[in-house]
């Protein structure tokens, strides 16, 4: 069972966000990529004529959803792929691991810092597309299709779940990679497979209903949980420092205390107690 300390979690997440804000690469990715991915859906839905049949409109809007879901899949993967190997590269991983912070707190703190802005960007992007379609789309079916309950539910559920998957995969790659750029390239590619699932819904191979959206959402959630367990197991202090797991007897059984010397020592004066 892994316990979390809210203060440590917040400290990790705050640090991550502060670093993002000062990283031109991350700011660039967060700011530019979503707009690049918005261009194609807008062009497609604006190009739909007023007389186009509802089935064709539905297919086009499905494609729009798929493109919009690439954003929460790709952005956090790029960030997460940097998260561990980047720390190792800077030499900050070792000081971080010598504090009382637990591995789950590091991972969750980093994940929160990546997932919150990514999902926010995804929702804002979706809202923008709906608003722009409402204002400028010539076919009224576009707006009604975009605003269908199952589609909105799918967007609401899939965005954080896809981001969760991407962050888990990105972090796993980052924990094992020795080079930041390779980690980011692999992380981006590895974040895409779950989009295949959403593609089935988006292209109406499976008819989007509340039940289908919910079902696929639960499926993604299960995959995320399994993936995070794998990442947690990989996030081993020894492996992160040396690149290999501990061999032989890992720790002295029963604490390994030499008899007669187990005693807390008093703190030095000066800065007061923790």
């Amino acid at each position, binding site marked *: 069972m892994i316990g979390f300390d809210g203060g*440590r979690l917040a400290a990790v997440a705050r640090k991550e966000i502060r670093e993002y804000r000062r990283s031109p690469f991350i700011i660039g990715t967060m700011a530019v990529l979503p707009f690049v991915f918005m261009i194609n859906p807008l062009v497609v839905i604006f190009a739909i004529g007023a007389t186009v049949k509802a089935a064709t409109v539905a297919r086009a809007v499905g494609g729009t959803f798929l493109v919009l879901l690439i954003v929460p899949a790709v952005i956090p993967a790029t960030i997460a792929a940097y998260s561990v190997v980047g720390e190792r590269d800077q030499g900050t991983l070792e*000081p971080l691991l010598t504090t009382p912070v637990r591995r789950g707190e590091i991972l969750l703190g980093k994940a929160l810092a990546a997932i919150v802005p990514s999902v926010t960007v995804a929702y804002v992007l979706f809202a923008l597309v709906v608003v722009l379609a409402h204002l400028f789309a010539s076919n009224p079916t576009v707006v009604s299709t975009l605003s269908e309950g199952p589609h909105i539910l799918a967007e609401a559920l899939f965005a954080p779940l896809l981001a969760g998957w991407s962050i888990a995969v990105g972090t796993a790659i980052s924990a094992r990679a020795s080079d930041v750029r390779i980690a980011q390239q692999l992380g981006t590619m590895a974040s895409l497979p779950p989009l295949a699932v959403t593609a089935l819904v988006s292209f109406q191979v499976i008819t989007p209903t509340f039940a289908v959206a919910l079902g696929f959402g639960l499926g993604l959630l299960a995959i995320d949980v399994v993936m995070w367990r794998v990442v947690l197991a990989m996030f081993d202090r020894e492996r992160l*420092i040396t690149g290999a797991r501990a061999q032989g*007897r890992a720790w002295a059984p029963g604490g390994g205390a030499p008899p007669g010397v187990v005693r807390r020592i008093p703190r030095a004066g000066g800065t007061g107690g923790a």
Partner: protein
Amino acid sequence: MSVVDAGSSAPDELSTGGASTALAVAHLTKRFGDRTAFEDVSFTVASGEVFGFLGPNGAGKTTTVRTLGTLLAPTSGSAVVAGIPLSEANGTEIRRQISVMPENPGLYLRLTVQENMELFAGLYGLHAPRARIAQALETVNLESRARDLCRDLSKGLRQRAGLARALLNDPAVMFLDEPTSGLDPVAAREVHDLINGLRQRGVTVFLTTHRLEEAERLCDRVAILNTRLRTVGRPEELRGSLFRRSLVVEMAAPLSAPEDVFTNQVGVQGWTSDGTAAYVLSVDDPRLAAPGVTRALVAAGADVVSITETRHSLEDVYLQLIDEDPEARR
């Protein structure tokens, strides 16, 4: 020559009385597959002691620090760190009581000094973190640079920021891994002053270093590691156990009959000369032997330029032990 073993007995042989023990290491070994990083290492460090950990590159110093800092699991042996048995279950509690400053202080360069401190204050769960951060920065004279990005700091200032960070949790044991590596003499001296300041505050410091003069100046005791522990003791004890004490007598001109002057002098065990006007006398106690030698030289009509005691440095001790070590010659 046998290895000096002062204070290197395993902790289970130690008495529990007297000064409290900050670190107790018993037969600790760490292997990575077939490679042995360090083996059968035993020593103790008293609370408030500045303990130097010396050794050549690849001797296992950093791996020892990482093991005692709970980053690596020992292959065998045991240890007590800050009064807590070294075990996976105790990892978080041990890390709460210690701080580790690696060779690279590992600051987040995109963050300010203050932000770096805030992160670690949060990780240690400190109460009133602002006051603690201010105090730590003041200790290392860095309060005026608190709002500077770490990437804008010089290497010496980064080292000081790393030390401030290591002070934040008021550690019972502070591990400093090569804290003056790559620093210029002025910056290194500032770090030395800080370590002396820690000693005065009673902080236990475990200092790994390549700089032997640094260890000699700062450390109460030193250990020399070369995969296995070669020696542990006070620098003067190590010198005394490895080298005979001697006097160097320099004359204006060579003595015509040095054997008449030096033989049978009280406290003089023997003498050598390289053929010039200088003589090296092996003595038990230079303070006892020097007056008699001086009188004998004056009585012989010799012109004495100087009589000095030979001082073997910690570097001499280190080189002697490492040269004797078959592993070092491989």
